[in-house]
Structures are given as C-alpha cells and as structure tokens.
C-alpha cells in the first residue's frame, strides 16, 4: 500500500492542532500510520473520522487492557503510540462520546507529560553543566605529569578560533534550534495544561505552520551536516583538507630547503620508494574558522644527501652507521579577521607546538615591518619555535635542525608580508 510521508506542521505538544490536522487528512482520504516529527499516512482515511491524542503516563507505558476496554466500549479504536508521548485513538462513529468529557480531566491527563518534560529539562541542564565542567577542567585545570611549563590559559585564543569552526558552529546552531523548539513546545504545553486544569478550553491552535515545517527541515539539514562534519573530522581518509601532499598544495609557505645552508631534499627526491613510516612526512592541512578564514599547517622533513659519520641529534635513525642530517619544520599560517587576535593567537599556537617535557625560554625580537617576533628555545638546543605577525597575518614555526631561526627572519616573514 502506497504510503504518504509528511512533516508534522505543528508542535508535537499542540494537541488540538494535531487532532484537527489529522481529521483534515482523513477527510482527504489519508489515515495515519505513524506519527512523530514525520507522519506517515496510508490511503484508507474515512471522512469524518475523529482523532484524539491520549498522553502516555510514562515513556514505556502501553495501553492497559482496562483502558482499551473502556475506549472500545465507548466506540474508540486504538491506532498506535504517537511521538513517544501519546496513544492515538480514533472513531468513525459520530455518536461516540468524547474521550474527555470535561477540560479538567484532560488537564489532569497531561500532568505526567508536563512532569516528564520538566524532568527532561532538568536532566538536560545537569548534563550540559557536567559537560561544561568537564571541559573547563580538562582545558584549564588538568595537569599532565610530563608538562614542565603548564600554562592553562594559553590556549584560550585557539579555543575561540575553534569555536568559530564549521563543526562547532553547526553544533551551536543545532543546539540553539533544538533549544528554541523545546522552549516553544514547553510553553505551549504549559499554556494548554494551565487552561485545562482551570476548566477552560485549551488556547486555540494556530494550525499548520510553514515556519514549523521549515524549521524542521533546517534542523534536519543541520543535524545531517553536523554528522557528516564530525565523521569527516574523525577519519583522515575522508578529510580532503587534511594530509594534503605538499606537491598538491599551493598556498605560500616556507620551504625547509630555503632556510638550510646545506642542501636538503625530501625523501621523494632521494629514494625511489618511501622508507617505512616516512610516506606522510611532508604534508599540509587546511582548517577554517570564521575568525581565521585562512588557516593552514605545513609539516616538512628533509634529508641531507651527504651522510655524516659524526653522531648528532638531527638524525632520525643512523642507517648502516651513517648519520643523515634530517631537519624538520612545522609551520602554521593564519590570516585572522581581527588584528587584535594576532598576537594571542600566535602565542596560543606556540603553546600548541611546545614540546611539554622541555623547559622553554621565550625572547621578544624586533624586526622592521613586523608587529612582533617571539623566539623560543630549549636548553638542549635541538628545538626552536618562532612566531611572527604583521597586521592580521601570523606564522608560527617549530623547527629541529642546525639553523638559528632568527637568522632567517627575512625568509620566514615572507608569508606574512605577501598581502
């Protein structure tokens, strides 16, 4: 039998409205088969059918034999549980007595639903509070035993940028949409309950609304987009903006070979096949935030074609007794929307790049044409970090190699001077 699906154009708590709408559909020859935010109909509707939504006493409640008997004797048939909160009854008998013969009893029947909604709201608030508390603890109070220089608030600007990323914005929009809908529904149920309990007719329904249908469609689209966005962000293979081979990446970045005095090459130019585990050494990744429309990272590792016999810290693994000089350079490049975010964002990225088990020293340098230059070193002299900024553009680097980064400021700052 062909089924017709329609979006419920009313609030799920607009009981008089839903009943009237179902009766309209029955007059058009459609009988409901299931009812939730979507309603399925089969073409067996009988004009003049009356529908009544009877609130369930609890989520797992079913129609009791006594209830079924009473309704049947009064000429009402049970259809199905609707929206997880009602039982739907119907009758084609115009003489059948109304399910609720007074407003007060209908109001009383809605009390469990009102209590359930309040309890759900309280549990939801408690869950949000717990989640927020956990996040705040993890972000600002968690201390790793390996972190020798913890700075709990250094990441605030990165968190701000992350909050304006598409997934976070979608999540926020979904939460706001669901919150607005829940608030509207709760108010409506309270108004209906209050009127009925006082022995008055429920407030008249505004009837089917295009705005409700549109909001349902928008919410569904947002939820699907959010799910896709989360799946993509969780699986690198699906993410077209992550692990982009450098050969296919065209945004401006500092090439590691441009700061090395001795020639260095990526493994692709030295070897025919990727050594195990080195295939993904040179790659780029793009991010997007409304506060930083341009945001990408480039990770590079290069090898000197000349092997050293002398042991040093920059060789990943001596091969056949030969130490290969292999520096690496990670860079993050951002063009921020607000110039005031440039310095704190650069400091946050420095902290993000920081190897937590090392004690870092930070030094402010001056360079004509740049707003700030922060150079960070660690006592072993292996790792360095550098953050530079000009207007809205920043570039932050983490480097392990023989070069002294401040000596290459001209090259490193090219990426923030290109505007």
């Amino acid at each position, binding site marked *: 039998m062909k089924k017709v699906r329609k979006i419920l154009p009313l609030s799920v708590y607009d009981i008089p409205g839903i009943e009237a709408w179902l009766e309209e559909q029955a007059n058009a020859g459609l009988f409901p088969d299931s009812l939730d935010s979507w309603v399925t109909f089969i073409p067996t509707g009988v004009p003049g059918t009356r529908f009544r939504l009877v609130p369930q006493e609890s989520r797992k409640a079913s129609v009791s034999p006594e*209830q*079924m*008997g009473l309704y049947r004797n*009064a000429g009402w048939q049970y259809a199905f549980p609707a929206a997880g909160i009602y039982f739907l009854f119907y009758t084609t008998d115009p003489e059948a007595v109304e399910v*609720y*013969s007074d407003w007060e*009893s209908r109001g009383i*029947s809605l009390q469990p639903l009102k209590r359930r909604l309040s309890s759900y709201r309280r549990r939801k608030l408690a869950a949000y509070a717990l989640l927020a508390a956990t996040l705040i603890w993890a972000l600002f109070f968690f201390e790793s035993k390996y972190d020798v220089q913890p700075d709990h608030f250094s990441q605030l600007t990165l968190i701000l940028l992350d909050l304006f990323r598409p997934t976070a914005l979608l999540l926020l929009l979904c939460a706001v949409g669901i919150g607005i809908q829940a608030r509207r529904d709760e108010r409506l149920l309270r108004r209906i309950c209050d009127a009925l309990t006082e*022995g008055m007719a429920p407030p008249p329904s505004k009837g089917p609304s295009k705005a409700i249908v549109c909001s349902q469609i928008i919410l569904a689209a947002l939820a699907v987009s959010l799910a896709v966005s989360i799946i993509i962000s969780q699986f690198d293979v699906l993410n077209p903006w992550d692990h982009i081979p450098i050969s296919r990446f065209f945004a401006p970045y500092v090439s590691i070979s441009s700061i090395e005095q001795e020639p260095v090459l990526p493994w692709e130019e030295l070897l025919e096949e990727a050594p195990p585990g080195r295939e993904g050494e040179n790659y780029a990744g793009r991010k997007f935030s409304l506060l930083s429309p341009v945001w990408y990272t480039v990770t590079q590792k290069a090898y000197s074609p000349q092997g050293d016999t002398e042991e040093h810290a920059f060789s990943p693994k001596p091969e056949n007794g030969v130490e290969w000089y292999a520096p690496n350079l990670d860079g993050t490049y951002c063009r921020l929307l607000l110039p005031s975010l440039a310095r704190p964002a650069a400091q946050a990225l420095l902290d993000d790049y920081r190897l937590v088990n090392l004690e870092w020293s930070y030094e402010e340098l001056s360079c004509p044409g740049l707003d700030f230059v922060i150079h960070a070193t660690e006592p072993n002299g292996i790792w360095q970090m550098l953050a530079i900024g000009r207007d809205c553009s920043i570039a932050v680097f983490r480097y392990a190699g023989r070069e002294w980064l401040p000596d290459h400021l001209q090259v490193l700052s090219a990426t923030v001077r290109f505007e």
Partner: protein
Amino acid sequence: MDGKERRPLTEPMFYILMSFLKQEMCGMEITEFVARKTRGRVHLGPGTLYTLLGKFQEEKLIEETQMDGRKRTYRLTCKGREAYLEELQRLKTCIRDGEEELT
C-alpha cells in the same frame, strides 16, 4: 491556600465517587451508573474516566479490589468517602446560600 488542600471536585469526579457509595464497581458500571443517575446529562468519556480512576487511586480515594482480565473493580476508601462528604457539604452550602439570596 495550602498547596495540598483539595480543590472542589468537578462534576465527573463527584459522580464517580458517588458511584462507589453502595458497591464496588468497574469502569463500565461507573459509566452506566453516571448516565443513569444524571438521566443522560453527564456522559463520562473513556479518557476522563480512566484518568480520574488513576488520580483517585494515586490519592488513595479508591482502591482496586479485583482484576479480571480487562475488568478492574474498585471500592471507595475512608478517605474517598470523606472527600465525597466534604464536597457534598460544600455543594449543600452553595445551594443554601443561593436559595437564601433568592428569598
């Protein structure tokens, strides 16, 4: 007003409690009793009856005495009788006050 103070009974509530005064009753019998007693003026809908039976049980105004398949039988408790008498007295007072004003 004390939040726990009972509000005046509605007409269906009053007649349902009345139906238990002389005997135990099941849902169908209550519907028939109310229709007979009010000469068809009050028709108890199945939703109203089921909801009020549940509420009265919760408030311990009635109690279940027997369950036979779909048929559940209830009887009035002392608390239920008190509630009925209280409402009856309230109605009597209302009528007396109303009639006094007419004379």
